[in-house]
């Protein structure tokens, strides 16, 4: 039985007991008796609520493992929905629907997070090496072998273009507008 239903039932029982035990009360005292009754019901229901209700469900326990998970796997990616959609895609493919060509699992494996984590780890080791920290021989050998592999992220810059077709860079702009190049780029 749900707890709130229990609370209602308890309130009904108390009301029933009070009506049975009630004796003729003076009009001036009725309000005080009613307030006492409400207070009693409230206290009992809160006792029952605090006794029976809890936050003891599975998902709340998973959060307490987040820090351990981060220690082991660097971050908490949102993979669950992607895997679910990949499962649906595979299912639809087996059903004869070949319209979706992208492989979601491959995308997940090649996602940003593990690459970023490995890159950050290597950069940290390199900075430690530069400060002459005491690193293990394996780490030093690995760093030497992968020095060329540590590259920064590829930056895709948008090329700014002018409104005129014949203006593609600052030099053209200087020629067209008649403003000297020295004043544009001092």
């Amino acid at each position, binding site marked *: 039985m749900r707890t709130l239903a229990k609370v209602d039932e308890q309130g009904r029982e108390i009301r029933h007991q009070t009506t049975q035990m009630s004796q003729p009360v003076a009009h001036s005292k009725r309000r005080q008796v009613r307030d006492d009754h409400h207070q009693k019901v409230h206290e009992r229901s809160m006792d029952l609520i605090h006794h029976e209700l809890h936050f003891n469900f599975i998902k709340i326990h998973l959060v307490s493992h987040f820090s351990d998970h981060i220690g082991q796997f660097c*971050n*908490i990616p949102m993979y669950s929905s992607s895997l679910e959609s990949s499962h649906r895609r595979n299912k639809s493919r087996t059903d004869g629907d070949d319209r979706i060509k992208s492989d979601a699992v491959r995308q997940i494996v090649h996602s940003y997070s593990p690459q970023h984590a490995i890159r950050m780890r290597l950069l940290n080791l390199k900075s430690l090496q530069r400060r002459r920290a005491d690193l293990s021989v394996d780490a030093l050998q690995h760093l030497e072998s992968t020095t060329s592999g540590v590259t920064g992220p590829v930056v895709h810059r948008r090329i700014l273009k002018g409104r005129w077709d014949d203006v593609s860079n600052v030099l053209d702009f200087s020629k067209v507008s008649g403003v000297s190049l020295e004043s544009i780029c001092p």
Partner: protein
Amino acid sequence: MLHTVYHGLFKHMMDGNRAFLKKHRRLQVLDDLWKPLRPYPRFLVPKKADHEIAQWQGKEMRNVGRCNLGVCAVALRQPLSPPVICCKQGLGYVRALVDLGIMAQYRSHMSDTIAYMEHCWDQFHRMKAILLEFSSNYAYTGQG
């Protein structure tokens, strides 16, 4: 992450919040506050009020996470019926969960960020008593 934080805890938080505000007669204020929310980069304006959504998507939950604390703070700005301490505890509960959800999405962590997350989790446990009476959805008796 999606199913634990958003579909698990945030859904729980939303239900508890609504019940809390309903008890203190602030639910209408909350519903009115959802409507005039303006769009912002990475924030989509919800088309429906939160109680009108039957099935939450991850994107909608993320949106709620971005605006829920502000909306609740405004709804409890001038407490009349609820005592101030209740409002503070309720807001502390929401804030702890929102902060935890945001920090859990970081792509890389330091010991400081993990410490922040643990602090939020402790804060959540300290404040959760205020919404205990509204957590009946998950509460069963000992017999199961």
